[in-house]
């Protein structure tokens, strides 16, 4: 009996040991970002990468913010409206595809879904030509439009799966009370889908904020969002690595905050990518 208990404690130690080891692996980059960010210019030394700062200095953040602030603003101007528009479109599509099945609706839905898996390199040349033709290449508006359109598959999917969970009887009951399609949406479906909206808003915010490919071909230096600006900063020989690190932390902050505050909803969006909501 006691050997069994010893074995049990050993297993527990092993389990927690492994978990702590993995935790260190996952937190290592954040540790380096934070300690480097708060060092003073004088103590920045690649050979002391892991050392704690001697105090809290904001030199690196001020330098990074100085360079990246306009791009951070560009990102927010892009991402906030695009995620709101995306979620509205997704909600309407999801409502129709879950509650108003029509002929070939499953096939059409699947064809739409395929759009979220394609490598965007396969549509990049026409996209750039088309945006040029519309006069939108280089503008935030153009990039916003692109995020909304290529967001249709995932937002439709998340909302459709979400609405599948609303029993059709509830809608039928509303119908008996005299509501038409819009009434049903306005008074039953929409109020029930607030959590769905949170999931989609967070997901689209993160996707558009973290995008690099569309941004790098569709914007110019005045409209670069933060990912493009940060990559250029990191490739620069002039900007010091500690400023790059502070910039990386700054760039990660908005989505990181959302994750910390609303992690549960973020996870649900993530899982939708695996199709079976």
């Amino acid at each position: 009996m006691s050997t069994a208990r010893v074995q049990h404690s050993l297993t527990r130690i092993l389990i927690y040991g492994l978990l702590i080891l993995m935790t260190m692996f996952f937190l290592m980059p954040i540790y380096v970002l934070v300690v480097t960010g708060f060092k003073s210019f004088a103590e920045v030394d690649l050979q002391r990468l892991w050392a704690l700062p001697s105090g809290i200095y904001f030199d690196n953040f001020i330098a990074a913010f100085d360079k990246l602030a306009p791009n951070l603003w560009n990102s927010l101007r892009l991402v906030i409206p695009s995620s709101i528009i995306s979620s509205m479109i997704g909600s309407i599509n999801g409502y129709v595809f879950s509650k108003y099945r029509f002929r070939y609706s499953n096939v059409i839905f699947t064809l739409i879904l395929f759009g979220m898996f394609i490598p965007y390199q396969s549509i990049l040349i026409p996209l750039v030509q088309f945006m040029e033709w519309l006069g939108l290449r280089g503008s935030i508006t153009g990039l916003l439009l692109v995020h909304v359109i290529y967001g249709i598959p995932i937002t439709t999917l998340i909302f459709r799966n979400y609405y599948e969970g609303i029993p059709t009887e509830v809608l039928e009951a509303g119908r008996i009370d005299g509501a038409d399609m819009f009434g049903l949406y306005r008074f039953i479906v929409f109020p029930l889908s607030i959590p769905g909206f949170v999931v989609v808003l967070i997901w689209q915010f993160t996707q558009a904020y973290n995008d690099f490919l569309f941004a790098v071909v569709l914007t110019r230096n005045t409209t670069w969002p933060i990912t493009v600006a940060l990559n250029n900063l990191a490739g620069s020989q002039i900007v010091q690595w500690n400023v790059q690190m502070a910039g990386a932390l700054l760039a990660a902050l908005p989505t990181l905050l959302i994750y910390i505050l609303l992690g549960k909803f973020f996870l649900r969006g993530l899982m939708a990518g695996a199709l079976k909501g």
Partner: protein
Amino acid sequence: MSATPAAAPAAKTARRVHIPNSLETTERRIAIGLVVPSIIAIAIFVYGFIGWSVRVSVSKWTGLLADYTFVGLAHYIDLLSDRRFGIDVRNTAIFTVLFLIVCLAIGLMLAILLDQRIKGENLFRSIFLFPMAISFIVTGVVWRWLMNPATGSRISGINLIFDKLGLDFLINQWHLTSPPWGIAFVVIPAVWQMSGFTMALYLGGLRSISEDLREAARVDGASEFQIYRYIILPLLRPVTLSAVIILGHISLKIFDLIVAISQNNIALDVPGVYMWRTTFDGNNYGEGAAIGIFMLVTVAVLMVPYLVNNMKAESDI
């Protein structure tokens, strides 16, 4: 999250009873009208543009002005003998295989560990998942410094830790290891970012396996290891399939992470980066389009059967 199967027939009868046919037809028309703009947008921006890309890939177009002179499969044939494209394909193959194996292994391990009635499970789960919220560009920028290849008096990054711990044999050149193995080290940041997702998938799978099943096996005298080996792992196969498909298509498309880490180092090149460079820096539109279509085909081979299967499974309900 799907409607209960029992609800469906009941709903159908209800609709037939209460809704006049004409109204239902009108509503259906409005409903279709609401999704038509999205359908048209996808038809143009996905399918129309793919067709247009194919057209570009068989035309002469080099230079800033569009030139649709038909050249047949010339660009595709050129790619076959293109040294850089050869490196790209090899890199993608190495990256994809290692990324899948390591991600699945770590994801499954973390899920099993977290399934052992752990104190602070939520905290651990959040820590393993947070890299998913960060962009590949940020990940690349940080890991480039962690994977600093310098040695001797300029030693830094993870090598510095190995040095301090006396694990000198682990000190290496990381992503600057001589080709083709440099790309293998880029798998580390990719796993850092994506293994939490794999863990979440597996954890979802583990939680859906009923406790009764494990209990029954325990009563029959199975050890914990045997329970995992013979009962749980086989039941997780569908999860593994989903994970392979999701991770696989991400890895075939990998782009931002490579851009941020490699900073133009050709040894770490992948098709996604080559397409971008040759098209928008080199103005080789025809060749760029051919690479884009090549990427599409590799991803489609993986995704189409999965999507069709999903669709069929849903129609069966």
